[in-house]
C-alpha cells in the first residue's frame, strides 16, 4: 500500500478529483448544499445566494487576473453591464430570463472584447488605469442614459422565469444559482486542463516568453477578457434577480475592490480559493454587523457608519492578507493539510 499520494502518469496528474476521498467529501458537500434551503431561514438563504453570485463573479476575475495576469479594476462595470442587459432585455423586449441571462453574459463578453482591444499592449499600471477608465465610462453611461437605464432612479427587475416556470421564491433562486455555480466551477476547473487554460497561465508567467514559444498572446488575452466578462455578466444578471431592484449605487468601485479582495483572500489563481474568498468576504459584513451591535451600546455613532466600517475592513483585509498570507486561505488550507498528512511526523 502506498504511503502517500503518488502520481505515476500524466492522466493521474490532470485528474479533476485527485483521490476517492475528495470525491466523497464533495458529494457530501453537494448533498448538504441541496438540503440546505429546507433548513435555513430566509436571511441565511439570501446570504447563500449572495455567496453563489460572488463565486461566479470572482471566478471570472480569477481567470483574468489570477490565471492570465491581467489586472482589472473594472470588474463591477461588467457586473453592471450584465445586470442591466438582462433586466432590460426582459423588461423591454419580453425575453424570458433563461434566455436573457446568457445573452447578458454574451453582451458583457462583447464589452470585454471592446475593452481588451485597447488593453492588449498594456501591462501593470497602465492596464489598471485603462480598466479603471472603462469603469468610469460605464458608470457614467448608466447614470446619464436616462431613457434606457432610468439613471439614478434604477430599475425594478421582472420576476424571472426558466422555461415557463416562474422563479418566485428565494429557494428557487438558490437552486438556479447553485446549478450555475457548479457549472461555472466545472468549466473553470476544466479550462485549466486544456490548451487554452495553459496558454493563459503561460501569458501570466511571462507574456514575451509565451509569444516566443508560439502562443498567440493577442488571442488569449482577448479570450481571457471575454471569459471574465461573461462570468461577470451572468453574475450580474443573477444579482439583479436576487435584489429585484438595480441602480447605479449597487455597482460602485467598492464592489470591484470587494471582488479583488475575494480573489486575494481566497488565493489568487486558484479555483477553490475563489469559493473560499467568496464565502469569507460575504460573511465578513455579517461579522462586522454583529461586532457593531455589540459595540453600539458604547459607541452609538457606529450604527450610521456601517458602510465605512465595512469598506475599511475590506481594505484592512486586503493589506493584511497581502503582507502576511499572500497565498490566501487556499494556501493556509494546503499548509494545514500538509501538516496533518504526515502527523505526528510533521517535520518533512
Amino acid at each position: 500500500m502506498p504511503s502517500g499520494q503518488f502520481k505515476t502518469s500524466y492522466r493521474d496528474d490532470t485528474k479533476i478529483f485527485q483521490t476517492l476521498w475528495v470525491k466523497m467529501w464533495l458529494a457530501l458537500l453537494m448533498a448538504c448544499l441541496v438540503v440546505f434551503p429546507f433548513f435555513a431561514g430566509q436571511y441565511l438563504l439570501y446570504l447563500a445566494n449572495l455567496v453563489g453570485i460572488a463565486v461566479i463573479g470572482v471566478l471570472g476575475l480569477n481567470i483574468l487576473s489570477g490565471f492570465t495576469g491581467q489586472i482589472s479594476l473594472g470588474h463591477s462595470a461588467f457586473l453592471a453591464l450584465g445586470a442591466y442587459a438582462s433586466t432590460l432585455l426582459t423588461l423591454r423586449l419580453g425575453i424570458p430570463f433563461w434566455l436573457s441571462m446568457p445573452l447578458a453574459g454574451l453582451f458583457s463578453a462583447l464589452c470585454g472584447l471592446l475593452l481588451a482591444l485597447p488593453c492588449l499592449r498594456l501591462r501593470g499600471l497602465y492596464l489598471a488605469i485603462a480598466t479603471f477608465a472603462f469603469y468610469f465610462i460605464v458608470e457614467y453611461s448608466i447614470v446619464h442614459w436616462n431613457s434606457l437605464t432610468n439613471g439614478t432612479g434604477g430599475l425594478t427587475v421582472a420576476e424571472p422565469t426558466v422555461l415557463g416556470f416562474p422563479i418566485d421564491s428565494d429557494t428557487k433562486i438558490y437552486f438556479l444559482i447553485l446549478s450555475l455555480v457548479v457549472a461555472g466551477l466545472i468549466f473553470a476547473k476544466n479550462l485549466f486542463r486544456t490548451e487554452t487554460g495553459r496558454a493563459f497561465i503561460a501569458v501570466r508567467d511571462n507574456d514575451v516568453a509565451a509569444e516566443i514559444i508560439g502562443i498567440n498572446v493577442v488571442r488569449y488575452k482577448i479570450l481571457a477578457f471575454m471569459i471574465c466578462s461573461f462570468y461577470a455578466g451572468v453574475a450580474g444578471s443573477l444579482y439583479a434577480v436576487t435584489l429585484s431592484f438595480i441602480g447605479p449605487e449597487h455597482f460602485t468601485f467598492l464592489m470591484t475592490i470587494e471582488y479583488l479582495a475575494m480573489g486575494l483572500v481566497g488565493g489568487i489563481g486558484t479555483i477553490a480559493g475563489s469559493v473560499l474568498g467568496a464565502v469569507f468576504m460575504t460573511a465578513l459584513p455579517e461579522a462586522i454587523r454583529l461586532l457593531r451591535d455589540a459595540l453600539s451600546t458604547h459607541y452609538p455613532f457606529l450604527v450610521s457608519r456601517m458602510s465605512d466600517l465595512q469598506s475599511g475592513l475590506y481594505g484592512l483585509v486586503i493589506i493584511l492578507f497581502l503582507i502576511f498570507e499572500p497565498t490566501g486561505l487556499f494556501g493556509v488550507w494546503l499548509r494545514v493539510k500538509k501538516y496533518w498528512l504526515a502527523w505526528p511526523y510533521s517535520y518533512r
Partner: protein
Amino acid sequence: MDSANFHILMQLLLSGVIAGSVYGLIALGFVVIYKSTTVVNFAQGEIMMLGAYFCYYLVVTHKIPFLPAFVLTLVFSALLGMLVEMVILRPMIGEPVFSVIMITVGLATLLRSIVGLIWGHDTLPFPSPFGDATFEISGMVVSPTEAATVVSAVILFLALFAFFRYTKLGLATRATAFDQRWAFLMGISVRKIFSLAWAIASVVAAVGGVFLGLMGGLEPNMSFIGLKVFPAVVLGGLESIVGAVVGGLLVGISESLAGGYLSGWFGSGVKELSAFVVLLIVLMFRPYGLFGKKEIIRV
C-alpha cells in the same frame, strides 16, 4: 470670436489652470513615489484628503491659526507617508506589480473609511484664511484662495525641481530612481530615500488637499480627485516631474473646457469623464503614455 465668447474661454482656461495646479501637485507626489520606489500609489488621493481633514481639524475644531496649523499638517503628512512606507510598502519589496497595486488600493479604501468614520460624509465648509473678497485680472474673477493655490503650487514645483536638481539628497534620490542596486552600492541609504520619497509625496499632496478644501469644502469623495492623477501622469509620463505638472494642467484645462462646452449635450458628468476618455484613446496608440519611457522586456 466675439469678445463675450473670448471672455468665457479665458475664464474657463483660468479655472482649468487653478484645478490643474492641484492635480499637478497630486500627480507630482505620485511621480516622486513612482520614480524612486517604482510603487504605483493608488492612495495618493486619500493621503491628500487625510492632510486636508487634519488641517481642518486643527483650524476649525481646535481654533489654531491657519499658518501654524498648516505647518503641523505638513509635519503630520510627512510622518504619515513615512509610516505607510515603513509598515505597508516595505514588506512588499520584490512582490509582483499586481500585489503592490492591490495593497495601495487596500490602503486607499482603509484611509477613506477612516475619514468617513471620524468626520462623516457631509460636506464640511473650510473657511478660507485669505478672505472672500474676489478681485479681477483683466475682467476675470479670481478669489484670493485660488490665487494662493496657484502661487503655492508654483513655489512647490520650483522648490522640488531645485531639490532634485541641485542638492546632494536630490541627486541620491535620482540615483535610486535610476537603479536601486547601484545606488545602494554607491553608499546611498535606499531605505532613507524611500522614506523621503513618501514624505515628500505626502506633503505635496497635503498642500493640494488643503487648498482644495479651502476652495470647495471637505467631503470623503474628494479623494476621487486623486484618481485624476492617472490621466495626468499618463499624459505627462510616469518618470518626469515636469511631465506630471504639465499633465495635471492639461487635465484641469480639458476638464474645464469639457464642462463649459460639452455638458449642454452630454450632461453634467462629462467634466469628470473627459479626462478618462482622452486617457483611453492615448493609451490605445501609445501604451506607455505620451512621454513614457518604452520598457524593453527581456525573457
